[in-house]
């Protein structure tokens, strides 16, 4: 940021009186190498792309570029933009390039010290600016939502607070794929291959609070940004340039966070720290970048409807809670004697919870509108008659913000022994979080691992093998209670290694299998942050080294997860049994203890010991290592 500021200051300072004509402006732009500046790259969304040298813009709409080769040539786009801005051809309102590219115009004029150009009529832009008269901008992070593949890493959007409306009435600037009503495999296929187009959209912020906070029950964090009025101006001018501009929407690559960061770069070009290929941005990393650049002044926590309900219910007595549930399900009338007997304050908070339970169940499609509308009104009527004025207290803010959670990538080095065979293990995981990682800043019980890869080297034999290559492991352990009745689940798929007795001699052999596993079950809160889970599982494996080249099995897993207060130590006691009834028939059993001890924010010790029994023989395995987050 300091560099960019210094650069801008220097560029402005060296600018001499306005160039008289286009040729002089272009010459000056060339001399100042403006096409090669972070700001021009930000305004045109130029990035490096795989298999191609030089810069390529991620914008795909032809309307975004002035030069025919603008998508790939920052220089010709800049010169064509200058020519377009200088053009005085009479045009219809809003059609002049000065209306179409207000951010480019403002920045180029500043850098080149251009004399004011004549103002063409731009009523649409003027109206846009009048509506979005900004006072501040806020980076909004919605926590991960595992039930939707598009949101399992969380989501970021930008909120513009304006003189006409703040907070709920602010404007949400959101980049999203136009996925229509596609779901399932079609969504996955098109989302991954760039089959969708993405656009920036501007909606009332309350719509976003509703969809993320009320419907998807995701807690929301609001990071107020310290943008100067000039930076805000440029950001909105650039947003205008992006209206209706299509970007190929890749689920992993040109995704919402990456595009949002690109928009913020128009205000602060220095936000782009390094060029990723592919440009993989996890939403929380966008927030971390903003925090690292001292862009964040204030952080607010906006708990979801479910978080509010859980907190409000926890304040009720056991009897009140039971009453609230009975009222919500219609078994007890909201004005029944049992409620009338309560003091007004207790009656009010009981009815508040009853209404929110009903609303939660309605949104979860557990009750129909016909059944709930009358009941909802009766509850609120009784609530209004209780007369006590006031909403439930705000739930406590979590100790860790999402940006304070451990970093996205993880690498580990470990040494262990399988039976009496020693090995060294290198492991790398580009994203994101498992049950044993430091928990602060992440959604409780939500595990999302992408492309976790481990390589083992056996010093005694000199051999190396890919121990694991797991594109996806997804686990959601959400505690079951009387209010919320969520199922816990797991899905994982990838290359694994199974240990088997050697066919000759009494040694062991290792077999690579491609394993898919799914599980469904329940989790329970044991208090103190400890969690008990039990899942029924189905497992399918393919592998040349298995008899019949594969195995199909059913079984289950269970475990207890617990941390010390402050989460310096965390452990998981686990057990799993799988009966492979088809293919290579056997019963596999494993049990053990995995532990993590945090040394610093970026470094942790890991210890794991287990017993495994498969194909009629058992092994003990122990491994210790260091994992780093970066």
């Amino acid at each position, binding site marked *: 940021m300091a560099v960019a500021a210094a650069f801008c200051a220097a560029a402005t300072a060296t600018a001499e009186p306005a160039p008289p004509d286009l040729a002089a402006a272009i010459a000056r732009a060339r001399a100042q190498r403006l096409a090669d500046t972070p700001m021009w790259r930000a305004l045109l969304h130029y990035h490096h792309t795989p298999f191609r040298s030089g810069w390529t813009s991620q914008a795909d709409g032809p309307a975004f570029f002035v030069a025919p080769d603008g998508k790939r040539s920052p220089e010709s786009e800049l010169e064509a933009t200058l020519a377009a801005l200088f053009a005085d051809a009479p045009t219809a309102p809003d059609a002049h390039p000065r209306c179409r590219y207000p951010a480019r115009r403002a920045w180029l004029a500043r850098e080149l010290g251009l004399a004011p150009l004549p103002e063409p009529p731009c009523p649409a832009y003027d109206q846009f600016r009048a509506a979005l008269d900004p006072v501040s901008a806020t980076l909004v992070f919605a926590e991960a939502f595992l*039930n*939707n593949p598009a949101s399992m890493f969380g989501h970021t959007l930008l909120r513009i607070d304006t003189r006409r409306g703040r907070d709920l009435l602010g404007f949400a600037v959101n980049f999203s794929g136009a996925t229509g009503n596609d*779901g399932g495999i079609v969504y996955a296929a098109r989302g991954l291959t760039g089959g969708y187009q993405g656009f920036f959209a501007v909606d009332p912020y309350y719509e976003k609070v509703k969809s993320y906070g009320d419907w998807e029950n995701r807690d929301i964090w609001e990071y107020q940004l310290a943008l100067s009025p000039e930076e805000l101006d440029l950001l909105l001018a650039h947003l205008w340039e992006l209206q209706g501009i299509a970007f190929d929407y890749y689920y992993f690559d040109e995704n919402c966070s990456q595009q949002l960061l690109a928009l913020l770069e128009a205000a602060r070009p220095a936000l782009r720290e390094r060029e990723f290929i592919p440009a993989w941005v996890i939403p929380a990393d966008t927030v971390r970048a903003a925090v690292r650049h001292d862009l964040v002044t204030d952080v607010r926590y906006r708990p979801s409807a479910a978080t509010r309900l859980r907190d409000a219910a926890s304040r009720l007595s056991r009897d009140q809670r039971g009453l609230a549930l009975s009222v919500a399900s219609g078994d007890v009338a909201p004005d029944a004697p049992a409620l009338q007997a309560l003091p007004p304050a207790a009656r009010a908070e009981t009815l*508040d919870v009853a209404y929110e339970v009903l609303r939660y169940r309605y949104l979860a499609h557990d009750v129909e509108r016909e059944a709930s509308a009358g009941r*909802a*009104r009766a509850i609120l009527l009784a609530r209004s008659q209780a007369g006590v004025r006031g909403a439930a207290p705000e739930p406590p803010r979590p100790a860790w913000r999402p940006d304070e959670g451990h970093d996205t990538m993880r690498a580990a080095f470990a040494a262990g022994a399988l039976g009496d065979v020693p090995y060294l293990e290198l492991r790398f995981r580009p994203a994101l979080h498992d049950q044993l990682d430091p928990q602060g800043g992440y959604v409780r019980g939500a595990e999302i691992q992408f492309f976790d890869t481990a390589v083992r080297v056996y010093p005694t034999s000199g051999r190396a093998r890919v121990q694991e290559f797991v594109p996806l492991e997804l686990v959601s352990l959400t505690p079951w209670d009387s209010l919320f009745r969520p199922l816990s689940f797991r899905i994982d798929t990838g290359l694994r290694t199974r240990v088997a007795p050697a066919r000759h001699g009494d040694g062991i052999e290792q077999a690579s299998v491609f394993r898919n596993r799914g599980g469904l079950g329940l989790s329970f809160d044991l208090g103190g942050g400890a969690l008990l889970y039990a899942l029924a599982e189905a497992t399918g494996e393919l592998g040349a080294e298995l008899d019949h080249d594969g195995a199909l099995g059913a079984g289950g897993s269970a475990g207890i997860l617990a941390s010390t207060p402050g989460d310096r130590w965390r452990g998981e006691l686990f057990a799993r049994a799988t009966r492979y009834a088809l293919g290579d028939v056997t019963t596999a059993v494993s049990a053990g203890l995995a532990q993590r001890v945090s040394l610093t924010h970026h470094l942790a010790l890991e210890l794991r010991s287990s017993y495994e029994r498969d194909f009629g023989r058992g092994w003990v395995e122990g491994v210790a290592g260091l994992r780093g987050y970066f």
Partner: protein
Amino acid sequence: MARFALVALLVLAPVAAMADPDIGCGPGTQIWAGNSGVAPKVLGATTNGTFGLQTFGITFGTLGCHQGGKVVADARVREFAAANLDALAHDMAQGDGEVLSTFAGLIGVKDSDRAAFYAFTQRNFARIFATDDTTELQVLASLEKLMADEPQLAVYASQG
């Protein structure tokens, strides 16, 4: 990239299949009948990012519904009430809350009159949400009428 995408596709297909395509889209997301009329049509196009707007869905408050008084006529008020009717109902019944205070700000209730306004909505809840099928338009019309009879609040209802 293609191979990567293929692998990831195989991996993600079962996950994607779990996605609830109905989540939060269109009708069926509010208990109260806040999804009819002009405003919800605007809102319908701006919900949940699944429609991929080609243009920005900014409302300039010029939807041209000028029947009724000040409160009913303001499209932003109508949109807000329609979109947040469930929460607005709860906030009015409890006489407090962010949606109610935002609503009060939208119809121009001064800070000094806020407490009175909140108590007023709680006191009159039965008449503001008169039926199980109350729409946002009926809420606004009732408010308008009831506020006109309230000395401290009449000023917010009467100006057209």
